[in-house]
C-alpha cells in the first residue's frame, strides 16, 4: 500500500511541477529522450537482476517450457478478451446513443 501511495505521489508531483511551470523548458522539450535513457538503464538493471538470480536460471532449465506456455497464453488471452470487451462496449455505446437521439 505504501508503494502505491509513493507512486501516486511521484506521478502527481511530476504533473504539478509541469502545471506550475517549475520545470525548465529545455527539460520539458527533452522529456522523451530522458524517458528513453532512463528506461534503457532500468531495463538493463532488470535484465541484470534476472541474470544473477540463480533460482530463475536453474528453474528455467527444468520448468521453463511450462512457465513459458502459461506466460504466453495469459498474455494472448488478456489481449483477446480486452479487445472483445471494448468492441462489445463500443456497439452498446453506439446503440444507446442512437436510441437517445431517436
Amino acid at each position, binding site marked *: 500500500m505504501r508503494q502505491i501511495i509513493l507512486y501516486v505521489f511521484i506521478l502527481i508531483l511530476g504533473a504539478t511541477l509541469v502545471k506550475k511551470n517549475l520545470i525548465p523548458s529545455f527539460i520539458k522539450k527533452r522529456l522523451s529522450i530522458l524517458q528513453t535513457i532512463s528506461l534503457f538503464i532500468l531495463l538493463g*538493471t532488470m535484465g541484470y537482476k534476472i541474470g544473477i538470480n540463480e533460482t530463475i536460471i536453474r528453474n528455467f532449465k527444468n520448468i521453463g517450457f511450462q512457465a513459458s506456455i502459461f506466460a504466453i497464453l495469459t*498474455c494472448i488471452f488478456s489481449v483477446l478478451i480486452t479487445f472483445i470487451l*471494448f468492441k462489445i462496449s463500443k456497439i452498446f455505446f453506439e446503440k444507446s446513443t442512437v436510441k437517445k437521439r431517436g
Partner: protein
Amino acid sequence: MLGIIISIISGGLLGYFFQNDYLTKNSDSLVSGGLCLLLLFVGMDIGNNQSLFSKLSKFGKKIWLLPIGTIIGSFLGGYIASYITKVHLGEGIAISMGLGWYSLSAIELSKISAELGSLAFLTNVIREVLAILTIPLVAKYIGHLESVSVAGATSMDTLLPIINKSTSPDVAVIAFFSGITLSTAVPFLVTAAITFFHLG
C-alpha cells in the same frame, strides 16, 4: 523496440557472465530509484497533456473493462495452459491469477509446494519480460488499451514507462488505474483459487 531488447538481454548476459558485487548489492535500489525517476517523467508527460482529463472523463465506467478483461483473459489463458502442460487445473489457475506480480504469487504458492512457487515465479517473470517486448507491438498493431492488459498488475510500476512511451499519457493514466486495481485483486484471486480448488 530494438533498444528495449538490447537493454534487457545485455543486462541479463552481464548478470550471468560478469557479476559485479557493487551492482549486485545495489540492483534493487537502482531499480527502485530508476523507477521513481521514470514515474516522475511520466507524471511530467501527464501534466504536459492539456486535454487529458476531458479525454478520461469520456471513458467513464468503461475504464473498468481493462482490469476485468485482464483477469478473465489471464484466467482463460491459465485454464488452457493447464491442459497443454498437464499441470493440475487449480494450480494452473492460481499461477495465472498472479497477473504478472511474481513476488506475491510465488510466496503464496510456495506455501503449498516449492515447485508450484517456482513455477508461479518463473511464469510471472516471463510474463513481465514478454510484456516488455510485446507492449510496443500490441500498441501499434492491435490497440493501446489491449497493450496495457499484457502488463497485468505491473502496469502501475515497472511497465508504466513502456506503456507511456508506446501509447499516450491518457492511456498511461488508465494503465496506472488498471495496475492498482489488479495489484489489489491479486492477493484475493490467488487465495480464492487456492480455496476453491482445495490446494492448501
